[in-house]
């Protein structure tokens, strides 16, 4: 190898080495470069931010108020336990977003909505429109899509939170416990951020958001609040809301109390809806099939005979039908599509739907309903039943 080729070889090797170094450096520098892309990527230690757990949105005197509940540190002392307390930060503005920015400005630390599990909308804010309260949240990439949305009936959401703090309740934990309890009754929570935002897109139907009641012992979901054209119009009572859950096919379990002193418990239920559109007439068939078990027998009659069991089956069918008829009746009376039938009719009668689409609101009171209720009492727990009947 002559001198020139040796130099060339050396220079080639050097270039290769430099290229490799540049490649490695590129990968290490990449995170720093991309770090400035969104504010989510910016570096912030977890103890330098207030993690918002519950957000209360209220409207009063032309202004929105955002009350954000967060846990305030306290440090870790394994022996003394954490001294963490819940605090509320507030911000006001002409819109909910403006209120949030105001809150950010006023709060000592930066805030993060990423851990917020519940959003409470005060009654007045709800009357202003769901979109007014939720629009800015739906555009925040850090918001959990499974965060739950509630309406606080007859109260400002901020008062709801403040009362909880005054009663020394751990609000976010209580709300979480309520969510767990709800999951025992329903197969899914329909009031998640993603579900509500989806429902809001369906302009022909109403949006249903659970409303909360509070007392000193905790919180309770009593039923659904009805939003027509995204504005709060009414609250459904407990039984009507149960009927909605049956029709939505989200009921996991449900107790039945018959007049003859027999108590049953539904352990499985399945609802199917069928919509037929003929000659501008909509007919909806609601088929509910469920299984129940006897939980309480406070009657002298032997309910375990074939005839009595058949009668009990008939009675429980009637009971459930009466529950289901309530939201149906509400829908007929109010002319509001609380059962989300518009989507059903459209999906099952796509071509005919166009003919009634524009007059859908007028069609709602004229919809005909048919009920098919099928049930089975699956477990009777005969042990000791004889003795108990004699005592009765």
């Amino acid at each position, binding site marked *: 190898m002559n001198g020139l080729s040796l130099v060339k070889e050396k220079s080639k090797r050097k270039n290769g080495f430099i290229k490799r170094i540049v490649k490695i450096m590129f990968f290490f520098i990449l995170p720093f470069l991309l770090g400035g892309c969104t504010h989510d990527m910016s570096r912030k230690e977890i103890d330098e931010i207030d993690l918002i757990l519950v957000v209360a949105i209220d409207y009063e005197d032309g202004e929105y108020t955002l009350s954000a509940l967060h846990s305030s540190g*306290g440090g*870790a002392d394994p022996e003394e336990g954490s001294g963490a307390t819940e605090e509320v930060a507030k911000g006001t503005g002409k819109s909910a977003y403006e209120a949030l920015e105001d809150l950010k400005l006023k709060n000592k630390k930066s805030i993060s909505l990423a851990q917020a599990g519940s959003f409470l909308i005060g009654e007045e804010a709800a009357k202003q429109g769901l979109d007014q309260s939720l629009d800015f949240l739906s555009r925040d990439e850090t918001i959990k899509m499974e965060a739950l949305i509630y309406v606080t009936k007859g109260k400002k959401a901020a008062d709801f939170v403040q009362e909880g703090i005054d009663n020394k309740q751990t609000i976010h934990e209580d709300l979480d416990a309520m969510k767990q309890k709800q999951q025992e009754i329903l197969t899914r929570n329909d009031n998640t951020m993603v579900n509500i935002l989806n429902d809001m897109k369906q302009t022909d139907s109403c949006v249903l958001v659970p409303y909360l009641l509070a007392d000193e012992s905790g919180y309770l979901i009593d039923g659904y609040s009805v939003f027509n054209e995204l504005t709060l119009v009414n609250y459904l009572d407990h039984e009507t809301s149960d009927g909605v859950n049956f029709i939505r096919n989200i009921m996991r379990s449900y107790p039945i109390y018959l007049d003859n002193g027999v108590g049953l418990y539904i352990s499985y239920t399945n609802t199917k809806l069928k919509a037929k559109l003929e000659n501008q007439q909509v007919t909806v068939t609601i088929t509910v099939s469920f299984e129940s078990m006897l939980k309480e027998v406070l009657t002298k009659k032997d309910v375990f005979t074939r005839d009595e069991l058949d009668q009990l089956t008939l009675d429980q069918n009637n009971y459930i039908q009466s529950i289901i008829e309530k939201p149906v009746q509400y829908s007929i009376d109010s002319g509001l599509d609380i059962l989300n039938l518009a989507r059903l009719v459209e999906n099952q009668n796509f071509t005919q739907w166009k003919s009634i689409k524009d007059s859908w609101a007028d069609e709602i009171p004229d919809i005909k309903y048919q009920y098919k209720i099928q049930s089975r009492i699956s477990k009777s727990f005969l042990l000791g039943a004889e003795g108990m009947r004699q005592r009765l």
Partner: protein
Amino acid sequence: MEQVINSKAIKELFSQSSDILIRPIKINQNNITFHIFCVDGLIDSMLVDESIFQTMLVDPILKEYQTERSVMDYLLSGGSNHVFTTEESDYQLLLKTVLSGNVALIFDSEKKAIVYDIKKFEKRSVSEPTEEGVVKGAKEAFIEVMRTNTALIRRRIRSEHLVIESLTVGKLSKTDMSLCYISNIANLELVEKIKQKIKAIDIDNISTPAFIEEFLIEHKKSLFPQIMYTQRPDRISANLSDGRVALVVDGIPFVYLLPCQLPMLMQSPEDYANHFFVGSALRFIRYLSMIITLFLPAFYIAATTYQNQMLPVQLALSTQQAKENVPFSSSSEVLGLLVAFEILIEAGLRLPKAVGTAMSILGGIVVGQSAVSANLISPLVVVVVSLAGISGFMMPNQDLSSGIRVIRFVFAFLAAAGGFLGLAIGLILIITHLCSIDNYGVAYLSPFVDIDESNHKDTLFRFPVKYFRKRPQAIVPSNRTKQKTQEP
């Protein structure tokens, strides 16, 4: 100029070495004299006396021979009381064989020597493996003596197809090595390739394992081990049956296996000693531990510094409270504690056992308790780093464990720089790197990346033995059947 065997020249060569013995011995009335040439301390002197001198003194036939050649022929054809007797005419080979512990009788006029294999030197006895101990299984481990190690292998594979080829490496050390393979199973091209690599080693001394390992691996810059070592003869025999090649090096108390793939390094002898379900569960936990040890510190940094939404609410709150009074950033805490952890490990290894234990306790208390009490680190970081550290020790292979310890730092740095994005970049790089490693023509991630389903029966989970019907395709192209498909 080619050197010939001559006692005078050898005497001159070793004139300054006190352990080399060269003594003239006259054996009969015909003035036939030879020189005994050996290394003091490497020979069995009693056996030398019995096999060589006593025979010569009392043997009446030997006294009659008049030439050196005739004496040599007599001794080589059973005249001495020793079986392992050979004639040597190569000067260099004679030096090598004597320096290895053999005894030579030099016949100057013939320019030849008779070599007696009468080695005896201090060595450890075969004991329990220190690194790969099992509750249920063999308790034998390799020692520093090559021939003992090859005997341990031979004892397990009594097939005529087991080949143990001898090689020598090291210009000064002249270290003996044995390349073991089963001739009708192993890929002979692979054997030849390994042999060529070994022959190409041009180094003075094979004093530590790294000296041989680094010459044999193909991707020298990779932190992932590409040559596997084991202390267990049963493991070697199992891998030889799978078509791999074993390399026994004199002076190294373990045996190398080639080619090596990542899943091999995650296997433990215990997996095959237990019920397949237990073995599979243990192996799965090992893989899980690898993920924990690699990613947990980095995950903690990313979640507490960038994407706190990755943490569940309660964990985020407790993390926040734990970190409230700590003056350092999460990344400093984690990296600092990881360094402290490495210092403790290194210090524990260097110190005598008794002091090491005391230091570990001291280190544990200082780091784990006092540092938390002094608000220097948060308790969660101690948990994270300890869990990552302990999980790292789950690796059955020390080389893999050490490599992962270094990569853990890289991931922590990337997470500190870019959160989960940095972590993702690191993960992509590591997967790309692992996919790019090719070990003697076999993919490093094989059999994970193999198309043939039969290769997957002993990877993430250990299937029942009846499913191990085929040898790995990537290693053994032909003669793949391990067992016939039949139920007892």
